[in-house]
């Protein structure tokens, strides 16, 4: 992996890198990828993927209202509360 490829992936993942990381990651990641390429030799032609190790995973509970945190409890540890809401930075830019 080249430094340029690393920078592209870091931008996609929204991860800032330090100078040290830019120096060591390309080589480390290349080593990991070459190690992983051992999988190329495995015949998986007729094999289905396993996403979860048990079959039951992924059920949804009934949509029933149950006791939960009060608004006060939910907001108690929040550093920035306005009128009973969490205040967070704007994440959608105005046109």
């Amino acid at each position, binding site marked *: 992996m080249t430094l340029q490829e690393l920078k592209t992936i870091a931008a996609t*993942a929204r991860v800032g890198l330090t100078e040290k990381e830019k120096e060591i*990651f390309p080589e480390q990641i290349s080593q990991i990828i070459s190690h992983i390429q051992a*999988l190329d030799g495995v015949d*998986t032609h007729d094999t289905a993927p396993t996403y979860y*190790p048990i079959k039951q995973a992924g059920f949804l*509970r009934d949509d029933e209202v149950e006791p939960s945190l009060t608004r006060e409890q939910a907001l108690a*540890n929040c*550093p920035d509360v306005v009128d009973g809401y969490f205040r967070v930075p704007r994440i959608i830019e105005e046109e």
Partner: protein
Amino acid sequence: MQFNEMTIHELRRLLRAGEVSSQEVLEAVLARIDEVEGEIGAYLALCREEAFAQAQRADEMLSKGDASPLCGIPISLKDNFTTAGVRTTCASRLLENYIPPFDAAAAARLKEAGAVLVGKTNLDEFGLGSSTENSQFHCTRNPWDLSRVPGGSSGGSAAAVAAGEAVAALGTDTGGSIRQPAAFCGIVGLKPTYGLVSRYGVVAAADSLDHVGPMTRDVRDAALMLQAIAGWDPKDPTSARQDVPHYEAALTGNVKGLVVGLPRELMGDALDAEVKEAVFGAANLLESLGARVEEVSLPNVEYAMSAFYIIISAEVSSNLARFDGVRYGYRAAEAEDTVSMFIKTREALGQEAKRRILMGTYFLQAGNYDAYYLKALKVRTLIKEDFEKAFQRCHVMISPTTPTAAFSFGHKTATPISMYKSDIYTCTANLAGIPALTVPCGYTQGGLPIGLQFMGKPFEESTILRIGHAYEQHAGLPVRRPEMEVKANG
């Protein structure tokens, strides 16, 4: 023996007989913490005041004849379990000041059982690592040799139990993070079947691989802890609707007729000679107790490391996306726009977390998805099938827990691949979702503990606890505690 060094079941007897109070046990644990924590560094936070209030309540419950085995027992939790009103950091600067308003399901169940929470233990940031060196706050030292790592990522929990700073603890295990540190610190660690213990309130690293489990001084204690936390939870969509048996009742000491598989692929060249000898010694002992040991084969297990690494990275890159500066914890100041705020905030992640996010992003990219991620999921199927086939011939399998005993600080940090190989014998059970237990099975010439791993069929924790317990009872290992040269505190 001091109260803080006893097992849960020894303390249960004394507490019920009124020979000691929960508050006295807690005092012994806190005194030990004052004595050795400066050297060990097992904890990220202590909850002294809350612990005394809980111990007082436990003593009241005990005086009324409360029967819960965990009532009044001082325990610790890895700092990736949310705890209402107690800072939960995942050893990450991104969550340095995060105080959750709710308890993780496993934490809540222990609390209901009357256990006393002493504190939150150190880990590799977000559970990513095998030495606890990736904690962004401080290192934890192995009580058996302070120049060595305690293993990871649940290194703080393992060191706390081994050093007498807690009677038992909970950890999480994504590729070996309960079993590898338990083996390095000479204690028992259990990763249950996927879905048996709720993960509600555990900060997710990799959904399809993360497990919650006990870290204890002996197998009986692991059974008692598991009993308290196992069972269906509607708040966890991966929780299994499964009956929970009585685990302690399974500890009969009898292993006659059990067939023990020894997978030849897990006894290969990577293995340290002393560890290999200890595992073969354990196999011989099990035979002498009436079990039958048979060689079995897991032909695809050599690909487990690679498949595991792809899957964990992909899932981590997705899970850690929530730490963006908007919702939780740290937010970088003075960013020009939203995207730079994300990037600058996430620059505060540690190197291992970043490597996994970058690798995961790479594996999931269009063009790479099929070749890496989908391929790894298919290899996972093959590995799972290998286990299913081998379990047609045996009831349990044994293997080393780790290729070597605890290593020195800095020994593997420069080459990530060598660090990942610490999990080579443990990550297979995470891919297959099967239960796996580590029990101490000897010491190296240098006096470091060695772990023996028992793997079982899905939801057959009772069987691995039974054989692990029988082994422990007959192994005749000298009961050793780490001999620490304790410097006077303050």
